[in-house]
Structure formats: structure tokens, C-alpha cells
């Protein structure tokens, strides 16, 4: 296809992506260097028969004027990145000098909002992704073994958790697990502890959100693995059966190597999706004990008094860096393959 024709065909979609994905990333980058204005203060001299006092009050008029003149805020450089709500460099230095042992230091650091969110996000990725791969693979194997006729409805039932939006999916589970729901109430009875509830314990909340993540993402892994299993050649499997290979050996030495590229694909996609975990935190109303990077950004953006554009943008930029680190191995591999292919 000539370059000119390509240009006209690709222009609309390219323009849409540049304007609404490329530019916003740049806009986020610029915003992250600004912070909202401080309030303008003025000195007011009040005199009464007993003498004069000077007090400092907020000048609302001037503040509004300043905000209107420079809506982006004041230039802050990397100030937002290193403040207490983000990388918290000063606090970490202080903790390092003040705390006695390493454990206490880690405790202090993981209580800082950014690190808290980072640790939750990474824990979520670390537990959900492998379990999704495993469960998806097992479901695919076992559905593959049932009669073809009844597979349709079974597949439909299996993919339900995936097609609902995460907010709805987590709500549906939350209403059952909540202390007034069917599962929560029964667990209370079983444990004989009427105060046992999801919200009461941080660990329980984390486990619930991770289980939700596995429940929500496994169907995707299942669908891809199921389709890949259909392409496994018959001859090597039959040869292995004749040679007396056990079922487990067949899966390990023939099926898995065959679907290996698909496994990396699923791992990559679900890692990317898990890294942006956000809606389940709202669905489970778990803001108190579990915060993710995406949730931090959301929280800044729905701030009641003044939207913290700078703070949200700084967290966004660091999230993008995180995504880049996750994607780097894949991109490097693609680049190498591309080079050798030419």
C-alpha cells in the first residue's frame, strides 16, 4: 500500500489516539510539575480602645484571582514527586536515621500512602496472576474433557465473571461476603464470632480482593487456553500414550510446550490489567485497608475541596513508569525478534 493511501486510511484512528491517549500522557506529565496555589494571606490591623492587633487572614478574593490567572497552579518542579504523599524522600531519610532496626523502618515506610498503595498493587499482581493462569488452565483442561454437546452452556457459565464490569462483579460478591450476606453470616456462625467481618481485618480484606481478582480474571485465561488446546496436534499425544506416558507427563511434555507462547500472552495481559486494580476497592468499600495506585489517583481527582491535579498527575506518571518496567522485557524481546527477522 502506498504511503499516501496508508496515511489517509490511518489518519482518523491515529488522530484519535494521539489526541486522546498521547496528549493526555504529556498533559499529565506537565501537570505533575505544578501544585495548587497556596491561599493568599493578608495582614489585617484591628484597632479598638485597648490597642491595635495585627492578625493574618485568608484573602479569598486574591486567592480566586490567582487561581483564575494561573489555573495550572504554581510551578513545583519535582516537589510533588518527593513530598510525603508520593516518594517521601525526607520521611524515609528520617525513618532510616531514627528507627532502631530494619523491621521498624520497613513498618514506618509501608505506612506512607504511596508505598502502601504500591505494596498492595504488587501483592495483588503477584498473587492473582499465577493463580489466574493455573485455574484458567485447569478449567480449560477439564472442560475439554467433557462431551462436546454440553460444552456451550458450560463455557457460557464460565465466562460470566469476566463479562461483568469489575465494579458490578465485586459488588455482587461483596453483598454475599458482607456480615449481613449469606456467606458472611454463615462464617460468623461457624467461627462463633459475631464481630467477624470483612471490614474489621486488613488481611481478610486483602484476601477477599485477591480472591475476587482470581474469580474475575480466570475466565479470560480459560478462554485463551481452551482455544489453544484445540490446536494441540494429536499424533505426539497418541504416541506418548502408546509409550506409556501418564496423563501428567503428557500435559507437562507435550501440551504445555505447545501452548507456551499463549501462556506468556495471557500472563502479560493479566499482569497489565491487574496492575491497574481499582474498581474492586470501591466495590468492596475497602478504601480503609487496601489502596492501590489507581485508587490514589482517583482519590485525588474526586477530592471535595480542590482537585489535586498535581498530586494525581505525579502518581499517574509513576504508575506509567511501573507499567513500562512491566512491559520492558516483552518490548525488548519483540525488538530482538524484529531485528533478526529483517
Amino acid at each position: 500500500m502506498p504511503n499516501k493511501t496508508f496515511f489517509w486510511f490511518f489518519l482518523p484512528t491515529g488522530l484519535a489516539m494521539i489526541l486522546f491517549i498521547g496528549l493526555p500522557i504529556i498533559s499529565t506529565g506537565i501537570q505533575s510539575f505544578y501544585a495548587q496555589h497556596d491561599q493568599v494571606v493578608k495582614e489585617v490591623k484591628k484597632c479598638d480602645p485597648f490597642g491595635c492587633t495585627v492578625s493574618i487572614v485568608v484573602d479569598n478574593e486574591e486567592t480566586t484571582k490567582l487561581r483564575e490567572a494561573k489555573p495550572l497552579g504554581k510551578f513545583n518542579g519535582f516537589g510533588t514527586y518527593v513530598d510525603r504523599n508520593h516518594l517521601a524522600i525526607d520521611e524515609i531519610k528520617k525513618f532510616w536515621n531514627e528507627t532502631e532496626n530494619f523491621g521498624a523502618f520497613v513498618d514506618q515506610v509501608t505506612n506512607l500512602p504511596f508505598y502502601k498503595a504500591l505494596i498492595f498493587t504488587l501483592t495483588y499482581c503477584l498473587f492473582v496472576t499465577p493463580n489466574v493462569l493455573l485455574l484458567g488452565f485447569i478449567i480449560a483442561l477439564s472442560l475439554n474433557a467433557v462431551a462436546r454437546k454440553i460444552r456451550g452452556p458450560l463455557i457460557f457459565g464460565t465466562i460470566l465473571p469476566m463479562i461483568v464490569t469489575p465494579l458490578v462483579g465485586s459488588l455482587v460478591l461483596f453483598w454475599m461476603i458482607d456480615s449481613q450476606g449469606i456467606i458472611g453470616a454463615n462464617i460468623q456462625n461457624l467461627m462463633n464470632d459475631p464481630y467477624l467481618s470483612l471490614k474489621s481485618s486488613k488481611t481478610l480484606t486483602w484476601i477477599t480482593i485477591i480472591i475476587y481478582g482470581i474469580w474475575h480474571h480466570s475466565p479470560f485465561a480459560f478462554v485463551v487456553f481452551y482455544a489453544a488446546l484445540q490446536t494441540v496436534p494429536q499424533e505426539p499425544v497418541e504416541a506418548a500414550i502408546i509409550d506409556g506416558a501418564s496423563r501428567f507427563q503428557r500435559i507437562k511434555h507435550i501440551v504445555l510446550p505447545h501452548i507456551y507462547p499463549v501462556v506468556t500472552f495471557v500472563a502479560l495481559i493479566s499482569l497489565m490489567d491487574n496492575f491497574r486494580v481499582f474498581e474492586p476497592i470501591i466495590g468492596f468499600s475497602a478504601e480503609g485497608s487496601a489502596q492501590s495506585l489507581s485508587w490514589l489517583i482517583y482519590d485525588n481527582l474526586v477530592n471535595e475541596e480542590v482537585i489535586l491535579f498535581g498530586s494525581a498527575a505525579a502518581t499517574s506518571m509513576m504508575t506509567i513508569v511501573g507499567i513500562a518496567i512491566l512491559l520492558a522485557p516483552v518490548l525488548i524481546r519483540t525488538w530482538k525478534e524484529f531485528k533478526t527477522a529483517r
Partner: protein
Amino acid sequence: MDYGLDKKSTSLKTFNTIFIIVWLLIACFPFIWTFWGSFKVRADFFSRSDWWYAISAFNTLIETGGKFTTDAYTQAWTEGEFWKASKNTIIVTVFVVSISLFLGTLGAYALSRSTERYAFWILIAALIFRAMPHITLVSGYLFPFFQLQIWGILPTTIVVLVAINQPFTLWLLYSFFKTVPKELDESALIDGCSYFQAFRHIIMPVMWPGVITAGLFSLMLAYNDFTVTALLLNQENHTMVPKIQSYLGTNQHEGNLMWAVSAVVSATAPLFMLVMFFQRQVISGLTAGAVKG
């Protein structure tokens, strides 16, 4: 895998059946339970005293005189203005699907027919764009949108959702276009068609399965989106998913949980029916990138 040689032992078969039944219960029961509960009153579905009330409908009988009640639905749809939210969802979904298919087919066709180096890099760039968390993009939109005073209205959200959706649509349609033989449009070009005519009259007619799959995924994205719609639309223009969240209530005001339950069922039912109808397309779409590529 129906291996003629593969003899499965009975115990393995039983184990397999049990596993599938357990998994299906885990996957489907929450939805069935929510559907069942949406016809009860709050005191039953969120019972403080006894969870069995949700089944025996103890309070529902007292409050409404029947074992099932549709009060939650009628209230949510009228008082809760869920009708407005679903109207907005329909507008957003229809426009997002049609625009993103229009842009996506043109772009993906060009990508699949180009032998230049930049086509590869565009696909890689699209993959990186696909990985961006939506909330980071939203934090980039808010400020300029406020300044341009285009925040809160449906058209802005539609354009944003189309753009966010493009990388995935491009990849999906690209892999479908790759399966259409090049000779088909080349012969049309020799006969004197322009590229656009070849695309319009030769390629599109054989591309319907791919277009339907891509359309379904655009639809699911637009229909299910929370991040973009919750932050870029004002209260008046909220679509279904942010509306459901607003029923949950906040620390300041108490929400109406039963409205949320019935709204969840109302929003999920059409989606389930659609997927039931188009199951084959959904699965082919999910696997297109993985297995064929």
C-alpha cells in the same frame, strides 16, 4: 481432545465432573443469588438477624404482603432516575461502537496491507497505549477539559472512549484482516478500483465476523466503563455503572442498597443475553490475538 487411545478412569471422570460443577457454582451462584435477592426487601437480603430470611422472605411478606416484590426496580427506575442512566448508556454505547468500528476498520485495513516498517511500530505503540491504566489518562483529561469547558457532557466521553478503545480494536481487526487473502483486493486494484473502493466493496463484505467481534468488545468497554464515565460526566449525564455507585451512598449520605441491587441486575441482564447470543464471537475475539498471532 478426544483421543481414541485415551481411556479415562471412572474416578478421574467423577473428579472432573465434580470440579466443573464446583467451579460453575462459584462462577454463577453470585449472579443467581443477586437476581433472587433483588426481589426482596432490604431487611431480607441484608439481614441483620438471620440470613435465611433472604430465602424465606420473612420481612418481604410483612412489608409488601407477597414473597416477591418489584419495589426496588420501580423505585430505582423512576425515583432513582435509572431510566436516565440507561438512556445515557444506550447513547454512549451506540456512538462508541459505530465510531470506533468506522475508525478501526480503516486503520486496521491499512496496517494489515502495509509492508512498511512503520506499520510494525504503530502496532507496538498501540500495545503500549493499551497498557495505560485508564485512570492515568483521565487525570490528563480533567484539567484541559475543565479549561475548554467540555467537561461533563456526553460527546466528550464518547470521543474519549472511542480513543481508549482504538488500540484493542486495531489489534483485533488487524489479526482478522490478515486472514483475508491479499489477492482479493489486489485483483480489484488491477481492475481499476481505488483502495477505498476495494476496501468498501471487496473486503468489508467478507469481514463481517471480525467486525461483529470487534463491535462486541467496543460495546462491552463502553457499557461497562466506570473510570471514564464516573469522572468525565456530571451527575445529570451519568451512565449506568457510575449511577450504581451513587446508589451505594457515601459517608455523608446514606444510599439505597436495594436500588443498587436491582440496578445491578437491570444492567447485567442485557449484557448476559447479548453474550449468550454472540458467545462464539466473543471467544474468537479473545483468542484472535493469542492463537492466530
